[in-house]
């Protein structure tokens, strides 16, 4: 069999991690009282996190092979089998998903009081879908999970969202669906060309003719570019974010966006190396535009969440630039930055949610001088804001620096343009911080008629893991980078092997 | 001996006349009658086949066609009556409630 290491733990860890939330969701159906539902859902998300912990402990960092793999027959007639496994690229995102899901359940303790049961079922299925995408090694399974993610997200935005939620939900759904349908076509072509098998590892081992590679690359690109979101197809993100409830935004920004970049790493680069090399220049241009365009648009934003949404367009521009720089620093930086972005933007949206619970407005103009009344909140916000603009000592810097380094190695002009992103980032983030926290206290909060209280215990508990990880990755990134080294190395080696792009190394 | 193809030819002619009636007449009753005509044309050809191919199946098929024809006629006319009660016309081109 190809290079996979079967799961040697005493229980099928990946299957449990993916399907525990599903079981939880089913059990939720029988509960009635909202409080019990919330605690039960919290218990399930915690359990999923605990169950997935042994992965970290037993993860073998020296090999790029798929680990904790499980393989069972499923639909034998079409050669589809239940095949799951993780490697350096996907292992970190398992934990990002589980942690963010716990935080989402916590943050929507008071925020969501209508249809609580359906909300938590959506969150749990969402978690299962995301985990499934990261672990599945069979295209059929992958596509199922890829699609199952959409429905709960659609519901989250559509039902518990803001005023224009239906439009945003439909737009989000259609955008992603159109992309993934093209991907489905790609999968089918791969299925027939690869000899009636949907096993991702076998398919990535094959060599495809250049012409076919290009078409398949474009098909997969359509699905992943929408998810990332890359430049021209990004307009669904701001709408989806402004209308989504806090928990929805956190999951959307924290994990959903990573699917696209993960897809590039898992499918596009290993399977279609020549096509990637052929399309490398437009991809660079799109990433650079995303960085600068996303940042510039942030200057003119009036809505808090929209600004953060556009900032994640800019951040994800960095990630794609890093991934397509195709050297070890760029790829490792890209993967780490995906994790960082999950943490930072997750934290930002959590905080927006927290303040929204108090002020019920997302317009920046309604804020002002909040440092006077909520000092702890503004303290934590400045930490996260600085992490978002990549201040050294925070996790943002490590990711961004490695990416700019990789981009510079790939092309001087790329590194140069990418570096401007740092300045633009600083400008819009500090403008935002000043408008919300500094200057005079906004008149309508002075009279106390509109109480704004500082962080409660629950909210501090939500934010502490994120703040700790911001500094942990900033000061000692090796704990996380060590997971990525071997897989990134393998990715680059077989890329340069197939296309002779040795100079990129 | 009369060859089989003549019978088929006859039933084809009758069938076409039925079609013409079905497509051209305004009066709904006549349209129903043309339908009956078409069915009978089919019966003729079936019986002819049954005769020439020495198998009884054709006749059994005719038997079933007749039952269906009867049912169809009954229902068709019932609808016509129900429709007629609402607006007193049975001219085909005035009945366009289904207009999209």
């Amino acid at each position, binding site marked *: 069999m190809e290079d996979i290491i079967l799961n040697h733990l005493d229980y099928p860890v990946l299957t449990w991690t993916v399907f525990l939330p599903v079981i939880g969701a089913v059990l939720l159906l029988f509960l009635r009282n909202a409080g019990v539902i919330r605690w039960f859902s919290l218990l399930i998300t915690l359990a999923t996190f605990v169950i997935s912990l042994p992965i970290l402990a037993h993860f073998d960092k020296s090999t790029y092979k798929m680990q904790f793999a499980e393989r069972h027959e499923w639909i034998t007639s079409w050669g589809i089998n239940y095949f799951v496994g993780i490697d350096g690229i996907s292992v970190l995102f398992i934990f990002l998903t589980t942690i963010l899901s716990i935080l989402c359940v916590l943050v929507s303790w008071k925020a969501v009081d209508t249809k609580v049961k359906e909300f938590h079922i959506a969150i749990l299925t969402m978690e299962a879908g995301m985990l499934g995408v990261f672990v599945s090694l069979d295209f059929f399974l992958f596509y199922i999970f890829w699609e199952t993610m959409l429905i709960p997200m659609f519901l989250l935005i559509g039902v518990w969202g803001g005023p224009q939620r239906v439009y945003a939900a439909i737009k989000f759904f259609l955008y992603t669906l159109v992309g993934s349908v093209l991907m489905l076509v790609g999968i089918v072509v791969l299925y027939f060309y690869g000899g009636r098998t949907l096993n991702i590892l076998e398919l990535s081992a094959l060599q495809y003719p250049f012409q076919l590679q290009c078409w398949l690359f474009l098909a997969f690109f359509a699905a992943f570019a929408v998810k990332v979101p890359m430049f021209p197809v990004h307009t669904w993100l701001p709408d989806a974010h402004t209308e989504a409830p806090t928990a929805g935004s956190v999951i959307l920004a924290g994990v959903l966006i990573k699917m696209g970049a993960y897809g590039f790493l898992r499918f596009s680069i290993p399977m279609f190396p020549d096509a990637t090399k052929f399309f490398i220049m437009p991809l660079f241009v799109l990433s650079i535009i995303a960085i600068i365009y996303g940042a510039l648009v942030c200057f003119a934003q009036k809505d808090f969440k929209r600004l953060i949404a556009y900032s994640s367009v800019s951040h994800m521009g960095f990630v794609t630039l890093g991934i397509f720089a195709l050297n070890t620093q760029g790829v490792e930086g890209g993967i780490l930055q995906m994790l960082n972005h999950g943490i930072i933007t997750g934290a930002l949206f959590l905080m927006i949610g927290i303040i929204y619970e108090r002020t019920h407005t997302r317009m920046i103009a309604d804020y002002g001088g909040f440092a006077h009344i909520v000092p702890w909140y503004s303290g934590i916000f400045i930490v996260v804001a600085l992490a978002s603009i990549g201040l050294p000592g925070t996790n943002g810097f490590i990711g961004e620096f490695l990416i700019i380094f990789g981009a510079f190695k790939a092309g001087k002009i790329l590194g140069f343009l990418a570096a401007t992103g740092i300045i633009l980032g600083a400008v819009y983030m500090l403008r935002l911080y000043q408008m919300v926290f500094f200057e005079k206290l906004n008149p309508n909060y002075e009279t106390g008629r509109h109480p704004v209280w500082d962080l409660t215990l629950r909210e501090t508990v939500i934010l502490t893991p994120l703040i700790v990880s911001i500094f942990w990755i900033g000061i000692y990134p090796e704990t996380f980078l060590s997971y990525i080294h071997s897989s990134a190395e393998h990715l680059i080696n077989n890329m340069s092997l197939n296309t002779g792009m040795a100079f990129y190394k | 001996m009369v060859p089989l193809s003549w019978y088929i030819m006859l039933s084809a002619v009758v069938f076409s006349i039925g079609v013409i009636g079905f*497509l051209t*007449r305004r009066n709904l*009753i006549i349209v129903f009658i043309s339908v009956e005509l078409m069915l009978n044309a089919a019966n003729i050809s079936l019986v002819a086949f049954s005769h020439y*191919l020495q198998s*009884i199946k054709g006749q059994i098929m005719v038997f079933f066609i*007749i039952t269906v024809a009867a049912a169809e006629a*009954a229902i068709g*006319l019932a609808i016509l009556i129900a429709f007629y009660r609402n607006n007193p016309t049975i001219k085909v081109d005035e009945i366009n409630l289904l207009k999209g």
Partner: protein
Amino acid sequence: MLPELFFAYFAVTITGLSILVITRKNPVHSVLWMLVLFIHIAALYVFLNAEFLAAVQIIVYAGAILVLFLFVIMLLNLRKEEIEQKFQKQWPLGMLAGTLFILFFVIILNKFAVFPAPGEYSIQAIQGEGNIMVIGKVLYTEYLLPFEIASLVLLVAIIGAVVLAKKKISE
């Protein structure tokens, strides 16, 4: 020579009658011509030694369905306003379709003269046992299910007709 003569007569009368049926202005006339047509068809069946069918044709078609048509026509007392314009506005299209049908049938007959192998019931056997016996035997063995379904269809038709045509007393 006789059978050809018979067939020629039948062919001409049946075609003529069917043309008459669809061209009469007054529906009652077309129904009556339809009656004559059914009788001729029954005769043709007898000629093709399907006596049972001829009887059924007369009883069901002529007796039941045409009577039903007459009832409906009388019920709707259409005669007076039906006099004017009897063809629809795009009748040429219908005529064209009809003629094309005939044309195609002619072509088909010349092109595909393939007929399935003869069954085992030779004409003598049918005459020997009697048409009804043979039909009965085959109907109640091989075609039992379709027979039951046919009865079901009729049941549905009856109920449907009653429900549809019933006067609305509720509102």
